[in-house]
């Protein structure tokens, strides 16, 4: 018998069963039986030319039909995943089969701005392409649940919607009666929630008169350094703007993980000749496609950019015209007190924000125009001048540039190498490129989570100013901008658009503008818009988030630890806070709930504070939550926070409710989300849940004979009006009603084409953003919006010489605020990162993982099968070896404050002094000891400064960020095997 015949006989005698068993054995080739391998090499020669078992006339088509039959569906709808990530707005088609979402696939309907640029197709990522797995996943909540055990214990009873709503409404009424509305706090929902839910949740909170900490600041996405410099952060660009750049810096970011839908613009720009530089401590998964990796020491970006600036200045490469026109570099600063020279100084009266140039044309002092950047003379950028003040004093003044040049002395390439680990050869080469090329940056949200990240941002903008790199095609640093009028207006509108709801708001803006212009005729439209949004912010009950943590969650003891703060700051957080409040920089409108009020009801809606708050699973869990009468979560999935809730209300998820996405500059379009299937179990869309809660609040109050309560502003609010107001007198009752209203807003504000309707949207599935809307984003981006061109910001300032919304009305690098001068931060500078967490040798970094957006997908089985399925910590292979650890071992990671256990993953691409942990759910860690517990989230006390134009708080902007966690100090040790398997 030949070998093949032998083999066939073995197979026919039952080998297929054996094969199955072999396949299901863990060990490798050793366990194989009856495979060709074991028959030896000699068998192979027998393959070709053999007559095999094929039967004549058996069609192959049945198998083809088998696979064709899989690829069938019943109906197709439009879908997307709201703005679970940034930029989002990936249009999908949803394929429904047998009443369930079978799969989803990108619609591929996104045009290029124009054919010279790559189009946006196909948009999407592995999360979006798998979302139906979330819909039907094990983490889905399908029925209202009431806690019957301890918080977090996982003991529940299923209750009716009516019972659950009654529980929630009763605690709200109790709280309004005993504590007042400030004791109702809404956890700020993320855009995960969807546009309708986002608007609805804030509308509900606003109508109750409750409080909500600002989302953008809370999550550490507020770029304080950009805000300090140009007076705003919402200066986005479209992804195809990158195609116009000749040099792109990717800083504090990792697009491969965080921006997969538009990542291709980077690789395509590179093919087009653009050079890419990644400034990142580790050689991260995006750096691998860059031309240069600048292996920055964590937290030292400021030194890098100051070094770049020094080369540009020393080699005479400064774009002086740009610097003169756009920046404060020509403004005169007094040598005696380090302050700008003001009109009050010179004339003894007038404005204390009227500053001066030294004009070389007239050879004398000239007032810097406050209403325009235009100047007919030629300002001095260097020199020392004597000025006689009104009080008779003779003082020496110099242009800011003179002070900058002095500051730059410390940033020679050699010193930058010492501090920031950027070799002089690399620094100088890059500086020459910055000075000569159209340069763009992308600064990721990590920057906003670095203690001195503001200094890095200020230094970056400085280098861009010196090289004339903004307000032009192919430039920018992108902090995102969004025409969010449909959401924002829906939070506050009293009546539908068609009944004049927007006109009311327009009248408010007009009146405010009149008032402000009477006080200061030089004020810009942009600054009026900012004042309006400040007023709206207060009305909405949006507050700086740091106060909730400081006063009500026990973070004071962490923030006041001087060892963990910048040693250049002479006082602790509390002292800065007290001074700030005493000076009226932060007022009772900001410090809500007031320190003496105890928050009693906390509403979570598609948020996850116990994952999101740094050290939240210690501080927030143990010091905030226990004081609550009611913690309730409206969520489609069982988050760590939902596990600790008293009531969990099941929310419909994408594909189960009507919604739309928000357009973000990076991907300027809005996508329709249709209700493809009925919600799972008893889940409901959020708008209808909020309405139901308010209705129940009215019923409970009426049953108890209650009619009204007093709000924060001293006004009376009637219980029985809450639902009416929420629904605009019964006109906006359903999620679908709300969406229709939001499309009307989009059309009325120029975000969609005039007259655009929901019916048309249903046909199109997606529309391109037509404008920046009528809200504050329009001014902040400062450029005309044309969907047929790549978008970049700040052009009005550069081309039209419109002033910036800053103290000096110029891009301002010199901040003559007392606190900044005291801290040595009046100019961009590099400071040694503080040892937050203690004096340990490793810095921890992390952020948005590849396979989840925040915690939305971290526990989805389909996506967890794309990696090790559990938290890992990335460590340099050599550093791990030095500690006796190998890949796959378990480590205990610790600092002064907390510890956690985790598997390690080693790589030579991680910097030797660095460890990296990306987001995971709390309950994915042993004993739920989440890595975030070590992070503290230390806010920089200096950011409590106020009394200065750009040091202000409004919706999405301003105040200290309590998620400052990059570069916290840690150490780790090997866990022994018994612990590892426990």
């Amino acid at each position, binding site marked *: 018998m030949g070998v093949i015949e032998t083999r066939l006989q073995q197979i026919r005698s039952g080998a297929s069963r054996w*094969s*199955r068993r072999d396949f299901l054995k863990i060990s490798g080739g050793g366990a194989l039986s009856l495979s060709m391998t074991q028959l030896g090499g000699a068998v192979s020669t027998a393959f070709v030319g053999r*007559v095999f078992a094929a039967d004549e006339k058996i069609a*192959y088509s049945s198998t083809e039909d088998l696979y064709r039959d899989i690829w069938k569906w019943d109906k197709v709808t439009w879908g997307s995943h709201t703005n679970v990530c940034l930029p989002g707005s990936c249009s999908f088609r949803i394929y429904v089969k047998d009443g369930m979402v079978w799969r989803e696939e990108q619609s591929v309907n996104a045009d290029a701005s124009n054919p010279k640029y790559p189009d946006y197709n196909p948009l999407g990522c592995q999360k979006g392409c798998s979302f139906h797995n979330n819909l039907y996943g094990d983490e889905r909540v399908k029925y209202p649940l009431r806690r019957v055990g301890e918080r977090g214990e996982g003991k529940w009873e299923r209750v009716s919607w009516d019972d659950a709503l009654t529980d929630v409404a009763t605690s709200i009424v109790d709280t309004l009666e005993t504590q007042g509305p400030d004791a109702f706090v809404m956890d700020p929902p993320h855009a995960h929630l969807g546009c309708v839910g986002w608007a609805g949740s804030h509308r509900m909170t606003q109508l109750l008169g409750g409080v909500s900490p600002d989302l953008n600041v809370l999550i550490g996405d507020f770029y304080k350094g950009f805000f300090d410099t140009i007076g705003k952060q919402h200066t986005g660009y479209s992804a195809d703007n990158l195609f116009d750049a000749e040099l792109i810096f990717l800083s504090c970011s990792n697009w491969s993980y965080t921006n997969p839908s538009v990542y291709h613009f980077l690789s395509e720009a590179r*093919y087009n000749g653009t050079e890419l530089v990644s400034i990142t401590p580790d050689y991260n998964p995006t750096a691998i496609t860059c031309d240069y990796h600048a292996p920055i020491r964590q937290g030292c970006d400021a030194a890098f950019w100051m070094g770049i600036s020094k080369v540009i200045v020393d080699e005479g490469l400064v774009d002086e015209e740009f610097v003169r026109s756009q920046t404060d570099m020509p403004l005169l600063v007094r040598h005696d007190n380090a302050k700008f020279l003001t009109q009050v100084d010179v004339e003894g009266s007038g404005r204390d924000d009227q500053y001066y140039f030294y004009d070389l044309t007239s050879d004398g002092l000239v007032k810097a125009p406050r209403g325009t950047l235009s100047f007919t003379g030629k300002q001095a950028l260097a020199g020392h001048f004597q000025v006689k003040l009104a009080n008779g004093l003779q003082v020496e003044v110099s242009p800011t540039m003179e002070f900058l040049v002095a500051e730059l002395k410390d940033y020679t390439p050699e010193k930058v190498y010492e501090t920031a680990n950027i*070799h*002089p050869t690399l620094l100088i080469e890059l500086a020459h490129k910055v000075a000569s090329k159209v340069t763009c940056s992308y600064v990721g949200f990590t920057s906003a989570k670095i203690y001195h990240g503001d200094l890095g941002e200020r230094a970056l903008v400085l280098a861009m100013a010196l090289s004339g790199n903004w307000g032009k095609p192919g430039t920018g640093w992108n902090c995102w901008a969004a025409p969010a009028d449909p959401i924002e207006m829906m939070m506050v509108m009293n009546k539908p658009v068609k009944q004049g709801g927007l006109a009311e708001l327009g009248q408010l803006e007009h009146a405010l503008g009149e008032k402000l212009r009477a006080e200061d005729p030089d004020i810009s439209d942009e600054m009026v818009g900012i004042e309006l949004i400040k007023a709206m912010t207060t009305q909405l009950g949006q507050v700086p988030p740091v106060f909730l943590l400081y006063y009500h969650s026990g973070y004071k003891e962490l923030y006041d630890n001087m060892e963990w703060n910048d040693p250049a700051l002479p006082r602790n957080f509390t002292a800065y806070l007290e001074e700030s409040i005493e000076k009226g920089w932060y007022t009772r409108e900001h410090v809500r709930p007031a320190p003496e009020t105890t928050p009693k009801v906390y509403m979570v809606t598609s948020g996850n504070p116990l994952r999101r708050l740094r050290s939240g699973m210690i501080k927030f869990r143990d010091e905030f939550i226990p004081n609550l009468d009611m913690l309730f979560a409206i969520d489609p999935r069982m988050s760590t926070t939902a596990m600790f809730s008293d009531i969990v209300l099941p929310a419909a998820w994408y594909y189960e409710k009507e919604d739309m996405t928000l357009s973000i500059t990076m991907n300027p379009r809005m996508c329709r989300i249709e209700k*493809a299937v009925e919600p799972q179990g008893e889940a409901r869309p959020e708008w209808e849940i909020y309405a139901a809660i308010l209705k129940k609040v009215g019923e409970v109050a009426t049953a108890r004979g209650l009619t009204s309560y007093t709000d924060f502003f001293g006004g009376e609010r009637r219980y029985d009006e809450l639902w009416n107001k929420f629904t605009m007198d019964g006109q906006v009752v359903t999620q679908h009603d709300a969406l229709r209203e939001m499309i009307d807003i989009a059309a009325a504000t120029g975000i969609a084409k005039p007259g655009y309707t929901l019916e048309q949207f249903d046909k199109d599935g997606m529309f391109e953003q037509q404008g920046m809307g009528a809200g504050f984003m329009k001014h902040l981006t400062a450029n005309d919006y044309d969907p047929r061109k790549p978008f970049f910001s700040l052009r009005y300032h550069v081309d039209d010489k419109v002033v910036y919304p800053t103290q000096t009305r110029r891009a301002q690098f010199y901040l003559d605020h007392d606190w900044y001068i005291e801290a040595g931060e009046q100019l961009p500078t590099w400071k040694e990162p503080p040892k937050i967490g203690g004096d340990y040798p490793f810095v921890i970094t992390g952020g948005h993982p590849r396979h989840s957006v925040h915690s939305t997908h971290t*526990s989805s089985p389909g996506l967890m099968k794309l990696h090790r399925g559990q938290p890992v910590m990335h460590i340099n292979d050599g550093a791990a070896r030095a500690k006796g650890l190998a*890949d796959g071992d378990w480590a205990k990671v610790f600092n002064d404050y907390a510890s956690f256990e985790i598997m390690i993953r080693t790589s030579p691409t991680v910097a030797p002094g660095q460890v990296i942990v990306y987001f995971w759910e709390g309950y994915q860690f042993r004993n739920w000891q989440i890595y975030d517990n070590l992070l503290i989230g230390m806010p920089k006390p200096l950011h409590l400064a106020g009394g200065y134009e750009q040091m202000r708080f409004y919706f999405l902007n301003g105040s200290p960020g309590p998620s400052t966690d990059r570069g916290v100090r840690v150490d780790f040790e090997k866990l022994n095997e018994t612990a590892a398997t426990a």
Partner: protein
Amino acid sequence: MTYAPKGAPKALLKESSRQIANIIDLNKCMGCQSCTQACKNLWTDRPGTEHMRWMNVTTYPGKGYPKDYESMGGGFEADGTASPGALTNMSDVGDNFQFNHADVYYQGKGQSVHLKPSSALTGEDPQWGYNWDEDQGGGDWPNGYYFYLPRKCYHCTNAPCIDACTHNALFKRDQDGIVVLDQDRCHGDRLCIEACPYKAIYYNPVTEKSEKCVMCFPRVEQGIAPACDRQCPGRTRLAGYMDDEDSDMYKLIVEHKVALPLHPEFGTEPNVYYIPPFDSTRAFAEDGSITDEGRIEISVLEELFGPDVGEVVRKLKAERKKRQNNEPSEIMDLLIGRNFWDRFSELTGDPADLDTFSTAAMSDGSDLG
């Protein structure tokens, strides 16, 4: 071919009138696994297929997928006959982790249990799984390096799996050259798995048959690109027929010769080609200074793409240089592919337009949503 006459020479099973092919651009791949999920959610979420990733992406250098496939043998002997390599087991092909959600959420155990994976194979903590060595790579700090390597069945012109099957279960479709594994003929012997040097065939322990990438032929025959290609947000893919000389894909493979098959030395003549990473991040010298050299040594690429890769890298670098000097470059324009649909020539259809594919429409002709 439609029928396999008894005793048909294997050459007949390998014949096709047309051949579909792919380019995957490794300079654009970000390792996001969208292709993996596009495929999985379409084809391998059925019982017995959950561990399969017909489309997969791993980090290179690394063990690859299936684990260590490059050292498992297969392909051809010196005399041109199919060579039996090793078999893969369920761990090698990435396992199918199981999770304990209900235990964490609803059993009243509080923080004493946490959500974690267990191996579907052993029930224990997994020691290996799909993409286990993601982002690890090779080299030494500060010159560590890696890139992502997406792989699927290469629908080889000279496919050893076809030779190896004793039941003629594997054949190339005449109209597009897609290699299909016939589920009626398959006996689950896995000789094809042994013979495939890329280990792109998988065993289904439920049906006790083997399965493999079908290149989405139900889509392709409707003029729609395979799911992994159409759904790749990195725009790494081009797809089309090798006889379409006007296609961007053809130009890159045949005219400009900048796309190469993986492991050409296996001799199977794959029909999926790669644009190799050609301008890798500049390396640091020992003294820390920046050099003009890339981090990925040419020898690393030669191991994957054979001796021709050096010339391809040189050509691509020169073309990119042209763009930096503001000179035109057809190759760079083709690789940019401004219009997404230019990358798919005949395969530009939209599945959402195919209302005849609705099961409802087929059964009762009812209106579509």
